Every structure is written in C-alpha cells, then in structure tokens.
C-alpha cells in the first residue's frame, strides 16, 4: 500500500516536472522538437490536467458556500454537493471536449496534409490543455477569494468567463507556437537567436546569450507556415464550438444560490445568451 502510494506520488511529481518544462518552453524548443514530436507523455499530462481542473472546479463551486438561501429552499447539502459536482465536472469538460473533437481533428489534420501523427496530435493537445489548466488553476485563488466574498451571481459568472478566456488565450498561444515548431522543425532549428539588448542598466548576466524564446513566443525572424495556420484554424473552430457546447451541457458549474442543487440543468437557452443575460443583470440589478 505504502509502496503504491510512493510510486503514485513519484509519478505525479515527474509529470509536474514535465508540465514545468512545457511552461518554461524547454520541452518545445526547436532542438527539443527537432524530431517532429513533442517528448511528453499524453497520459501523464492528462493526469496532471485532471488534478489542476479539479482544483479550479472546487474554487468555482465554492461560490455556493457561505451564501444565504431563500427560506423556501430546503437544500442543506446543496452547497457541498455543488463543490463536489464542480470538482468532477471541470476535468470532465476538458477531457470530454478532447475526446469528442479528437477524431474530427485528426481527419482534418490528415486532409490538410500535416505530418502530425495521431499520437503526436494527442500529445500536443493534452499538453495545450495542461498549459491552459495551469493558468486557470493559478487564477483559482483569485476566483476562490471572490466566490467566498461576493453575493452577486452574475458577477461570479462573468469572472469565471474572464478566467476561462485568459487561460484559453494563453493555452492557444502555446498551441500555435508548438504547432509551428513541430510542423517546421527545419526552419525553426536554423533560426538565429535575437540580438542581445545593450543597456547600461543591464544586469551582469546580460552579457550571456540572449534569452531563449518562451513557450508562447514566436522565435525571432520566423513566420507561421501555411500548414500551421490552416491546422490551427481548424482546431480552434472545432475546439471552441465543442467546448462551449460541452460547458453548456454540463452546467451548472457555479450554482445559482436561488435554485436547489441539481447535477445538470434542463435543456434551455445557450452559452452566449447566458453571458449577455448575466451582464444585463449586473447592470440592472437583480443579481
């Protein structure tokens, strides 16, 4: 039992180090992806992504705690169940979106003529999701703080939309740059590093070589290839549409304090209408 626990801990620790390498940009440098593949374990990244998503889900669901509910609502365990549900549903949102889109992504990828294999593509996508979730989890402390101290449901709804947007944009930047490096390793590897900055105020270390490009940076002097742009656009459209719909199907993630807890909501409206509705409530009151 102890041995198994030690092995699991060790495994997660190593995968966290992999994620750290991804975030630092070390795993996606031209020399690292020169072999046309990303050297990270898809399964390992998925495991880390699940843990990060669970953390953010718990932060998101915590809005239900410490709230006064209408007296007519007899739901003593509702807030705790909502936290539990959000903790389960957030990783499900990302993993199910990946599962649903993977076949279409692979087909479009093959049709475009990209040299990415199914395994390579899965690795790349799980890595991007892990980066996305790392940013999201880091915003979790802010979301938790506001969730516990705010009564306004529309505000929290919009705050979470903003957090998902910020994390999504950074995750997509990582995906685009990594795609570029994987699909055009030859040009990437031959790139000259940018010139060092000459400044009187610079630190003593500034006479070292120029900084390596970050995980979300375009290496200097390079342009996105036609394939990269096309693959990325296809992925972006598919992933966004399926992700938004999946989020809508799996709602509630936050839990309206005026409604009793339910694991799923009835079919109605759509994601964008809900966001505009929350904005209206925030401005006009009633939230």
């Amino acid at each position, binding site marked *: 039992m102890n041995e198994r626990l030690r092995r699991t801990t060790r495994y997660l620790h190593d995968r966290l180090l992999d994620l750290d390498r991804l975030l630092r940009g070390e795993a996606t440098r031209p020399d690292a992806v020169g072999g046309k593949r990303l050297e990270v374990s898809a399964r390992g990244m998925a495991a880390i992504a699940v843990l990060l998503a669970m953390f953010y889900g718990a932060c998101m669901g915590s809005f239900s705690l410490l709230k006064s509910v209408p007296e007519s609502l007899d739901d003593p365990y509702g807030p705790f169940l909502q936290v539990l549900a959000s903790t389960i549903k957030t990783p499900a949102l990302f993993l199910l979106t990946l599962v649903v889109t993977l076949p279409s992504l692979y087909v479009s990828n093959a049709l475009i003529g990209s040299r990415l294999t199914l395994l390579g593509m899965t690795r790349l996508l799980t890595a991007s999701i892990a980066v996305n979730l790392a940013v999201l989890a*880091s915003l979790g402390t802010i979301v938790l703080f506001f969730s516990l101290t705010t009564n306004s449901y529309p505000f929290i709804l919009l705050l979470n939309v903003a957090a998902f947007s910020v994390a999504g944009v950074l995750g997509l930047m990582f995906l685009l740059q990594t795609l570029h490096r994987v699909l055009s390793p030859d040009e990437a590897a031959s790139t000259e590093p940018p010139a060092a900055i000459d400044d009187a105020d610079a*630190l003593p270390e500034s006479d070292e070589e120029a*900084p*390596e490009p*970050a995980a979300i940076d375009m290496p200097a002097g390079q342009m996105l290839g036609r394939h990269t742009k096309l693959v990325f656009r296809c992925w972006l459209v598919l992933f966004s549409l399926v992700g938004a719909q999946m989020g809508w199907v799996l709602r509630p993630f936050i839990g309206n304090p005026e409604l009793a807890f339910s694991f799923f909501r009835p079919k109605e409206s759509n994601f964008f209408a809900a966001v505009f509705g929350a904005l209206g409530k*925030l401005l006009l009151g009633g939230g």
Partner: protein
Amino acid sequence: MHALLRTADAVLRRGARSTAPEASPPTLPRLLLCVLAFGGFYGVVMGLYRTLNGQPDGALQALYSASKTPLLILGSFVIGLPVFFVLSTLLGLRRDFGRSVRALISAQAATAIALAALAPVTLLFYLSTADYQQALLFNGVCFAVASCAGQAVLRGHFRPLIARNPRHRGLLVGWAIAYLFVAVQLAWLLRPFIGSGLRVTVFRPEAWDNAYVVVVRLVWSLFTGD
C-alpha cells in the same frame, strides 16, 4: 527599531543589492516585518479618527485598523502570487522569479513605509476637520500616493530585468491588473478602516458584498437616472 529603519532606508533607496542573487539584507523576514510594522502604524493613526472626534471605543477601532492595513497589503500580494508564478514561467522568465518576487515584496514594504510617512499628515488632517467623508477621501489619497511609491520601487527593481528581457514589462502589467483587481475587493471587505457612528465593528454588517457590482450599478444609475 534601528534595524527596521535601516531596512526601510534600504528599501526606499532600492540599491542593486535588493535584486542581486547574493542579496544581503533587506531579507524577506525583514521586508515582511516592515509591512507589518509600518502598515500597522498607519492603521493605528487612521483609526484615531474616532478618538479625536470624541466617539467611543477609539482604541478598539485603532487596533482593528492596525491589523487590517498590513492584511490588505499582504493579502492582495498572496492571492495574486500564483498567477504571477505561472505567468513568469509561461513568458520564459522563471530564471528571474526569485528576483521578481523580492522586488514585489520590496514594493509592498515601500507602500507600507510611504503610508507610515504620511501618518503625521493624516493626523494633522484629522485635527483640522471632523468631516467623515473628507477623512475617508484623504485616506484614499494617502493609499494612492503610497501605491505610487511602491510602484516606483517596483519599477526601479525591474529596470535591469526589463533591460535584460523586455518580456518583464508584460509580466509587470499582468501583475498590476491581478493585484489591483484583488486589492479593491479586499479593501471593500475589510471596511471600516476609519469607523464612524456609535458602535465599533470588525466588518460592516453588509461586508460580504462586491465592490465592482456596487460601482457598476452606481455608474449605470448615473446614466439612466434610476
């Protein structure tokens, strides 16, 4: 006390040693002590409003304000730190993370020191007027001025880092947004800092509220006349 003042002097002069890897004092515990001591001192002065205007339980309000001011400065910093860590990693700036955090903590200390320096002016203001709204506004101005001092120290520490890698500028902007976003709400929650009325309370009865929602609705009602 002497060591604390020496640390404060080192923070304000923002010598290169504060960001050097082999940094001598000011060390982290000393910087934190600066926030607690100077922030607490300003809190005491801020809470003297009741005493100077003949309202009951002035000492209790001063004690609450003394504990709330460092909590406001450090709380915003701690809540925003995970975002700063992930952003600095993602921007390829992890090598400078230790230095960046030292610069951030120095900025928090500088804010507290600037507040403490403004304490005599606040006291003078309290002695000149009994108007609560004016006292509130004046303290708001003091916090804004102290924040500018903190920002100046932060910029000073980050200048060599930005010179070496311009991406630090973007990191600073990201940090400023996260820090301000949290600080405004935390300040709203920790009210009252000055205290007026018959009873002293740790928090306002309607403390669990949202500063942004209140402001948005206020602005909206100004436009619509509701």
